Every structure is written in structure tokens, then in C-alpha cells.
């Protein structure tokens, strides 16, 4: 399977290129190509993860040059886990987009940009050296800025510009950190840097590099002092893009990169873990309280993303293997149910023309598919047993209590109740009760939109099965990579 690794970047790049070539000549060519590419990537990622369980890590030297000279592509347990999640959510977003994007013009541009973003995300996960990670990160980010502004309404371009300035600042800090790392360790390969740093620890420059990376990746992940751009960008983007941005984009570019750099390259110290925990707690609380007061469904979901990403960062900060397991399991669950909820919000906007909670009501009778799938997603995100969201929150809280952080565990449980509150409010205002606006015309959702939502709801309902012994290896190998540290 080693030689298949570069195809995770080649397939989406090629599909994006073909999309531009064929656009306007063959009807629906762009949508079909994008769906084919995303589907084949999902199959390929599942195959790779399957062979990963036998061999441990997969690696490929680009151009046949061995490690110190050439560029290495690596897939290990952690990146394999996130790779499957990324390609799954992207594929379902593509199915959804096939009919949803008909309300926009110039659809082939959307598909080409989306494929570029997917290539960037896959590249971030696969690259074995820091500079290539930066290049792919920028590829994903720049196509992300363009996709947020895709609707070219005044709000869209404003949100996109804010996002661009924040994202560019983040990239600058990351690049400065990479330059300092290179000048200190004389190599860019991740495992070589870890070896070089292990020989000469406790340097002031490591502290500086840590601060730069924390700021950069923290901005990309929208952890609380750096969260200002997220709600605007994620609520203004076209719905399939919001689902991917909130579901997997901030996790790949933010949490995966952050944990890779800190756990596997620089090495975690108790001080850094404590900073993670504090940032996670603040993200949880502030995100949840900002989500309560929102009237726009998509803005509420975006603030909820900040709050839930706080849980993952907090779990990584607790740092015991059990906590990391809970955090990564929550990452999987959050990717699934948050993209599901964004697709529901998009369907509501598609059918009724508004996203304002005060103008909606009683949609359950007319839009049963969105109604019941979003009920399932809301139940999972607010931690109702036996859904996946409940188990992951339970594991995180138990791990925090075991590690002796009683106060933080209490706050995490409390925020979970607040989450239940605002999702209950979303359900009652949108789907139950009586229609508020009389004569609201309801357009029927197309079949591909319903299909994507139903598949996501089925995965959300059954995600707790990943904890069972048969599938456990999938999560455990990812936890093992982080728990091993920078050896």
C-alpha cells in the first residue's frame, strides 16, 4: 500500500484540474468528477487504514530519494484515523453539494476549489516534514478563503476578508516557527527534528518556537483568544463548505497539526499540557455562552464548534492515554454530527429561505428527514446516552477526574448541560411547535441532500460501536502515536 500514499494528493488535484478543463463542455461533469474523486479517496483511505493495522506505519519516498535528502510521505495511526474522517465528511458533503449547489452559478469553480482544499487537507495529514506541511496548509487555507467568499454577498466577502487576515497571520507565525526550528535543528524531517531536540533540551529557543506554533495553530483551530473569525467564516460559506470547515478543516489544520507538533516533535511538558487545558476550558465556556444568544442557526452551530473543539483540546491537555482516547473519539463524533447539523441548517435555508430561528417553527411535519436527523445530531452533541457524543464526553470527564482535575471535570460536565440547553432551543424553535410565519413556502429538499443527511445520521447513531473490541484498533493506534511522545 506504500505506493498509494501520494494518490491522496494526486487524485483531488487531478480532479480539480479536469474540472476546470471540462467545465461548460459536458453537463454535470464537475459534480460527477468531484463525487468520483471524493468517493475513491474514501475507499483508498479505508484500504490504507486496513493495511496500517498490520504494518504500523506506511511511508513513501517521493522520487525515490531516501529520507535525509528527499521528501517523505508518512501515514501512521493518528494521521490514518483523521484521514478517514476527512475523506468521509468530504465525500458526503460532495453528495449533498450535487443538488444543493444548483442555487449558485459557476458551480465548477466551487468543485475545483473544493478539490484543492481536499488535496491540502490530505497533504497536511500525510507530509512527513514541517515545510511541506506548511505548503499544504496554505493550499487548504487559500482555497478555504475563496470558498467562504463563494456567494459574493456583502457578508460573505467581509467574513472571508477577516478570515484571510487572521489565517495569513497564523501562517506567518507558523512559518517563523518552522524557520527557527530549521536553524536550530538543521533538518525539517519531523522524526529527525525530534531526535535533534532530544539531544539538547531546555533551550530558550524551544520556548519561543512553542509560543509561535501555539499561536499559529491556535488561530487555525479557533481556540478561544483566537476565535473571532470562526463564526463569521463558517456561517457565511456555502453549506457543504461550512460542514467541511467546521467538521474537519479546523481539526486537520488546527488540532492535528498542534498535537503532531507538540506531542511528536517538540515534546510535551506539564506546563504546555496545563496551557492546553486552560485554553480548552475557556473555549468550552465562551463558545457555549456565545452559542446560546444566537438567532442564526449557522452562527449558533459555529460557536458550538468553538465550544466542542475546547473539549478536544482539554482532553489532549489532560494527557493520559484515556483522555487522549476520549479526545480523539470526540473528534470523530464531532466531525460527524457537526457536519450533519450544518447540512440540516443548509437544508432549512434551502427550503424556507431563512436561517433565523425566530421566523421558523413546526418544520417537522414538512421536512421529516431534516427534522429527525437533526434531532439525532442534537442528541448526540448534547450527550444523551447511548449515542457517541455521550460516551466521548464521559471518557473525557472520567479521565480528568482520574488525573485529579476535579474542578475542570465539573466545568466540562456543566458546559455539557448548557450545550443540551441550546440544542433543545434549536429543536423547539425550528422543528416543533407551530409555524410562526404564516404562508412560508417550503421547497422540497432534493434526494441527494436527504441521502447525505441520512448516511451521516446513521454514522452518528452507530459511532459508539468504534469503542467495541473489533474496531477498537482503529482508535488505539491513533492514541498510541500521541501517547508515545517524541521518541
Amino acid at each position, binding site marked *: 500500500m506504500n505506493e498509494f500514499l501520494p494518490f491522496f494528493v494526486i487524485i483531488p488535484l487531478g480532479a480539480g484540474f479536469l474540472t476546470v478543463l471540462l467545465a461548460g463542455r459536458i453537463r454535470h461533469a464537475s459534480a460527477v468528477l468531484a463525487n468520483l474523486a471524493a468517493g475513491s479517496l474514501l475507499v483508498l483511505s479505508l484500504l490504507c487504514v486496513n493495511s496500517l493495522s498490520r504494518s504500523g506505519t506506511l511511508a513513501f519516498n517521493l522520487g525515490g530519494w531516501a529520507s535525509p535528502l528527499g521528501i517523505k510521505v508518512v501515514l501512521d495511526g493518528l494521521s490514518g484515523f483523521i484521514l478517514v474522517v476527512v475523506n468521509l465528511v468530504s465525500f458526503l458533503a460532495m453528495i449533498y453539494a450535487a443538488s444543493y449547489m444548483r442555487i449558485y452559478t459557476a458551480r465548477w469553480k466551487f468543485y475545483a476549489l473544493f478539490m484543492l482544499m481536499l488535496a491540502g487537507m490530505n497533504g497536511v495529514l500525510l507530509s512527513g516534514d514541517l515545510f511541506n506541511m506548511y*505548503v499544504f496548509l496554505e493550499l487548504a487555507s487559500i482555497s478555504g478563503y475563496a470558498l467562504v467568499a463563494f456567494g*459574493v454577498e456583502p*457578508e460573505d466577502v467581509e467574513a*472571508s*476578508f477577516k478570515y484571510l487576515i487572521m489565517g495569513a497571520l497564523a501562517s*506567518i507565525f507558523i512559518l517563523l516557527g518552522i*524557520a527557527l526550528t*530549521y536553524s536550530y535543528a538543521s533538518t*525539517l524531517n519531523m522524526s529527525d527534528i525530534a531526535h535533534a531536540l532530544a539531544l539538547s533540551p531546555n533551550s530558550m529557543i524551544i520556548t519561543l518556537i512553542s509560543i509561535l506554533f501555539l499561536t499559529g495553530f491556535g488561530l487555525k483551530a479557533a481556540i478561544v483568544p483566537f476565535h473571532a473569525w470562526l463564526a463569521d467564516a463558517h456561517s457565511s460559506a456555502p453549506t457543504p463548505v461550512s460542514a467541511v470547515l467546521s467538521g474537519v478543516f479546523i481539526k486537520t489544520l488546527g488540532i492535528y497539526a498542534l498535537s503532531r507538533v507538540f506531542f511528536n516533535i517538540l515534546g510535551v511538558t506539564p506546563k504546555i499540557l496545563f496551557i492546553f487545558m486552560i485554553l480548552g476550558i475557556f473555549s468550552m465556556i465562551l463558545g457555549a455562552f456565545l452559542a446560546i444568544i*444566537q438567532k442564526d442557526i449557522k452562527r449558533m452551530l459555529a460557536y458550538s464548534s468553538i465550544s466542542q473543539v475546547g473539549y478536544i483540546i482539554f482532553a489532549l491537555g489532560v494527557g493520559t492515554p484515556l483522555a487522549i482516547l476520549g479526545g480523539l473519539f470526540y473528534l470523530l463524533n464531532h466531525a460527524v454530527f457537526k457536519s450533519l447539523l450544518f447540512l440540516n441548517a443548509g437544508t432549512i435555508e434551502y427550503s424556507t429561505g431563512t436561517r433565523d430561528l425566530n421566523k421558523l417553527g413546526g418544520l417537522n411535519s414538512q421536512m421529516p428527514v431534516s427534522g429527525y436527523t437533526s434531532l439525532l445530531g442534537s442528541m448526540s452533541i448534547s450527550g444523551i446516552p447511548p449515542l457517541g457524543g455521550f460516551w466521548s464526553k464521559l471518557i473525557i470527564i472520567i479521565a480528568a477526574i482520574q488525573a485529579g482535575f476535579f474542578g475542570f471535570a465539573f466545568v466540562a460536565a456543566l458546559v455539557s448541560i448548557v450545550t443540551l440547553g441550546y440544542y433543545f432551543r434549536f429543536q423547539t424553535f425550528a422543528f416543533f411547535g407551530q409555524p410562526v410565519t404564516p404562508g412560508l413556502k417550503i421547497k422540497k429538499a432534493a434526494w441527494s441532500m436527504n441521502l447525505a443527511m441520512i448516511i451521516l445520521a446513521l454514522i452518528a447513531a452507530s459511532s459508539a460501536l468504534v469503542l467495541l473490541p473489533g474496531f477498537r484498533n482503529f482508535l488505539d493506534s491513533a492514541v498510541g502515536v500521541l501517547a508515545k511522545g517524541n521518541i
Partner: protein
Amino acid sequence: MVLYFLCFVLFCVGLYCILRKRNIIKMIIGLGIVEYSINLFIILTGYRRFGRAPILAHDQQIPNMVDPLPQAMVLTTIVIGLALIVVAVSLAVRIYEKYGTFDITKIRRLRG
């Protein structure tokens, strides 16, 4: 040492420009300045005094050569910077079409 200090000054000028200016075109210019300062810094990390280009020839010994890898990295970051500036400027054009101003304090339709 002077070069590093000047590079840092350039970085601070660009950062000030991004964070404090109200005109979005000036913010984009600040973005460019910061990128140039980082590129300069990466080049400086590979610089050796009186070093030569590391080109291998048959009958030549080069005792003191500069590190070529940062130069290759800078070429890549310049291209990335170009793409970023192009997206930023095209967004600025759209913003001017929709809002009729470049003033970031007047471009506030998103709230909450």
C-alpha cells in the same frame, strides 16, 4: 546581527500595518511586508559570510558555501505569498463594489 535586527524591524512595521491600519489596501500591503521579512529571515538562516553558491563542479573545492535549502523554501513561500495577495486583492475589489469603502470600521454587517 544588524541584518537580523533590521529584519525584525521590517516584521514589526508589517505587523503594525496589519493590526492598526483602517484601510484594507494598507492592511494587504502590511501582509506583503511581513511576508518579505519572514523570507529575508529564512534566507539569513542559511547565510554564511563570504559563502558561495553550492554548485558542484569537477575540479573545484568549495570550502565555504551557503545552505541552499532555505533558498528553495523561500521560492515556495514567495509563490504562496503571491496567491494569498491575489485572493486578498480580489476580495478587496469585491468589498469596494459592495460597501463602497475601504475603511474596515465601516465594513461591519456581521455581528454577534
